[in-house]
């Protein structure tokens, strides 16, 4: 490279012009962006908080307020909140993120104090519409309520969860999510 450099004359003005134009554009863009970000960040956070509280309420019936809780880091668990009715601890809302067909499914699992599932709700997913989403209907999710220990998967058997044929990957992912939450509570992950 060095000998070509001798031949190539560096026209400083051109380089400066290029660098300054790009600097101006990126700086203005960043300024604009950060101002809008600063403006909208609180609103977004507040909204996210609100949707989370709604899904937790849906999952843990009868709970009035939720407080975030420290927990030992376990694979698959993204957030844990304790659910109280007034001062009495009803159980925990464990947020898990199993990987489904189209990507990670973020879901909320309510587990009461004696380790039984009180409810399951899906926060966000990217499963294929019309196929994976069949495993997210309320009837399907209602099957998990009241289950304890680890849930085994059988299609068609009445004791355990019967999966939607054709959407096995998504339904298995949701069952994994619930199992992770149950196992987490069983091992007393909450300190």
């Amino acid at each position, binding site marked *: *490279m060095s000998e*070509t*450099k001798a031949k*190539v*004359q*560096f*026209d400083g003005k*051109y*380089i400066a012009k*290029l*660098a*300054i*134009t*790009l*600097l101006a*554009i*990126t*700086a203005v*863009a*960043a*300024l604009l*962006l*950060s*101002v809008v*970000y*600063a403006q909208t*960040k609180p609103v977004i956070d507040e909204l996210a908080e609100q949707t989370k509280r709604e899904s937790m309420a849906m999952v843990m019936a009868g709970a009035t307020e939720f407080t975030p809780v420290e927990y030992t880091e376990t694979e698959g668990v993204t957030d844990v909140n304790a659910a109280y009715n007034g001062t009495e601890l009803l159980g925990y809302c464990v947020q898990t993120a199993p990987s489904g067909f189209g990507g990670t499914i973020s879901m909320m699992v309510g587990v009461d104090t004696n380790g039984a599932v009180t409810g399951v709700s899906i926060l966000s997913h990217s499963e294929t519409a019309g196929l994976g989403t069949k495993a997210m209907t309320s009837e399907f999710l209602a099957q998990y309520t009241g289950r304890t220990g680890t849930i085994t998967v059988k299609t068609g058997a009445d004791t355990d969860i019967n999966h939607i044929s054709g959407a096995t990957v998504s339904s298995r992912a949701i069952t994994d999510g619930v199992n992770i939450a149950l196992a987490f509570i069983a091992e007393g992950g909450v300190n």
Partner: protein
Amino acid sequence: MTTVIVYSVALLGGMGVLFGLILALASQVFKVETDERLEPMTEALPGANCGGCGFAGCGAFASAVLEGKAPINGCPVGGAPVAAKLAGIMGVEAGETVRKVAQVRCTGGGHDKLRYQYVGIHDCEAAVRLPGGTPMLCSFGCLGMGTCVKYCKFDALSIVDGVAKVDREQCVGCGACVAACPKHVISMVDYDCPIEIPCNSKAPGKEVTKACSNGCIGCNLCAKFCEAKAITVTDFLASVDPAKCTGCGTCVAKCPRKLISMVGGVAAVEEPAAPAAEG
């Protein structure tokens, strides 16, 4: 909140400067010596990259003109306006350009008189490879299987009842069809030439009457009666010199085979002396 603003401006601005420098240095190191007139020249050209000028595209033609290897009016598609623009950029006087257009020298009269029944790939280049070079009796005529239509980028050619027809307005004169036709039936003629002689047959009269309903038999009547001496007959085939032809229409009336016609389909009036309206 201000820290977010400061950080993001600093980060993005920093990246902007860094990349600006890298790009600037790279553009110096990788500098390709191009004549700065090349950019506006390529802009002025129609950009169809059709190859009518004989170069691999408008960019190649522009650099050839800059190196003086190609005439300024070399772009048939652009014609006079583009040549003028190029001259403006080059600061040189533009040569005079004549608008050319493709002409199919066959009326399709012999289309149904066949030597043998051809069943094969529907393409002239394939049909030409068979014995006699054509399934038709007339060995000079258009096969009507549409190779030229495929090659024409400006959709100016179409096959109408067995013979290729040129849409004079669509045709930009790039010459792709002339090169494509295996029977060499298509040739470039001046757009302004008032009459057209759509025949390519150099066979003697006896054969032509057998092979085609209105092929040229080389009877010389049109050449004799043309006052402007614009028509010459060589190898039993009449051809017109566009410069001399006044468009008087006597030849159209005189031609026993009703072959010669006015461009633009204006029927010549019967009396020979009638001034033919410009088609």
